[in-house]
């Protein structure tokens, strides 16, 4: 039986509907492709901009050199007789170790690691000092309590676990003052440790430490302070190589993991921060806290 004209009409209408639906689908697909490519394009461009921005502003690390004197927590340890190189397994520079390997989060984690668990003659208190060369209160702390710490270390009552950091790099008008001084400090610790504390005293001295937000001391001025502290010229001349620039960023990152929020100066006794409970700028109060930690 031949299809009726009504059937034919309906078939044609169905075919037309199907074609329209197909076209609409294709248009929708094209629109989706356009949107997805636009969004992906934006993501790619933004990622590139991010990478470029970061390489442009951060101090360009020369090489990834981990100092042999660095502890796993990014500190430099001195006892009464001077620098103490971390024993096997306690240093950051252990072969094959990543800089932050073995680092545990939070102050409690510090007590189970060297130097807090170290075997020092006379069972001294481990005094960890976290500081940034640009931080005004770090200068204040050095001026007020630096002498006391020197004396207590010389008498064997404490060992110092020193942490030069660079998180205030943005506060030096683009010169990365914190990184430059911290790199110098790590260089001294590695090559001329006897000049280390004299150098810190010099850069934190009243009238020498720069104001936050200024360009800070020049490389020449930093070198002069190190020379005055007794560092050999051939060591001082390597400051501008930035040998430990990369490491300073790593040590700062490790400190941020250990401390949560970095508030310098941060002073720890045997791995426990006292900065919020003790007036660390008052040598008498600081001495009392150290004595208490020694008994405990």
């Amino acid at each position: 039986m031949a299809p009726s004209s009504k059937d034919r009409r309906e078939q044609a209408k169905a075919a037309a509907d199907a074609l329209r639906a197909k076209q609409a689908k294709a248009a929708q697909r094209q629109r989706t492709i356009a949107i997805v490519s636009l969004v992906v394009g934006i993501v790619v461009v933004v990622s590139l901009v991010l990478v470029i921005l970061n390489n442009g502003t951060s101090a360009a690390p020369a090489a990834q050199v981990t100092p042999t004197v660095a502890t796993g927590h990014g500190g430099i340890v001195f006892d009464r007789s001077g620098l103490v190189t971390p024993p096997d397994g306690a240093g950051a520079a252990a072969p094959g170790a990543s800089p932050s390997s073995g680092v545990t989060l939070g102050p409690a984690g510090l007590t189970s690691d060297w130097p807090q668990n170290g075997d020092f003659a006379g069972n001294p208190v481990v005094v960890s000092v976290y500081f940034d060369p640009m931080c005004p209160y770090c200068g204040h702390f050095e001026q007020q309590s630096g002498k006391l710490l020197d004396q207590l270390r010389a008498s064997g009552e404490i060992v110092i676990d020193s942490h030069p950091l660079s998180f205030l790099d943005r506060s030096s008008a683009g010169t990365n003052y914190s990184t430059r001084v911290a790199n110098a400090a790590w260089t001294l610790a590695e090559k001329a440790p006897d000049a280390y504390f004299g150098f810190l005293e010099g850069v934190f001295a009243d009238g020498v430490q720069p104001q936050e937000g200024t360009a800070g001391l020049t490389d020449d001025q930093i070198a002069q302070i190190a020379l005055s502290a007794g560092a050999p010229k051939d060591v001082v001349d390597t400051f501008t190589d930035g040998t430990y620039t990369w490491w300073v960023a790593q040590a700062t990152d490790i400190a941020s993991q250990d401390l949560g929020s970095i508030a310098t100066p941060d002073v720890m006794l045997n791995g426990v921060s006292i900065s919020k409970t003790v007036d660390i700028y008052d040598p008498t109060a600081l001495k009392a806290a150290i004595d208490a930690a020694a008994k405990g």
Partner: protein
Amino acid sequence: MSDPDPVLPAGRWATARPWVSTVVRLALAVVSLWAGLAKAGDLAASVRAVRAFELLPEALARPVGYGLPAVEIVVGVLLLLGLVTRYAAAIMGLLMLAFIVGIASAWARGLSIDCGCFGGGGATSPDLTQYPWEITRDLAIAAGAALLVRWPYSRFSLDQTLGLTRAAQ
């Protein structure tokens, strides 16, 4: 989707709505771009700002510290162009809710930190914390984002050019 008019007589609100959405969209774009670019110059600081909240496990500190500025910039560009406005605004709104939770939690735990919302961040002295202001600001941004999710159609947008949204949605 037709919406009963909440405020104005039907005609006037329908006319004003795309313009309100346009202003809110551009304002949010500027805020998001500013926040993202301010962090982008120092990603190590961004990671430290995340850690300062002491909320996320260490394994997430780096991905969030690096990823957040990227997301903020992408969302900012999308809002600026008016492309997939509804979704970009939704992401921004969710980010704000996360920030509000983070800041409120830091406040409640007695931490003294700067939120690092526009770069920097980390510890600050207790009398320099600005928790009420930071939360108010983020609530206002979240409200703007909610408005855009509800009424994403706006003038001068790629959504309009591409015919993704209709005026009478």
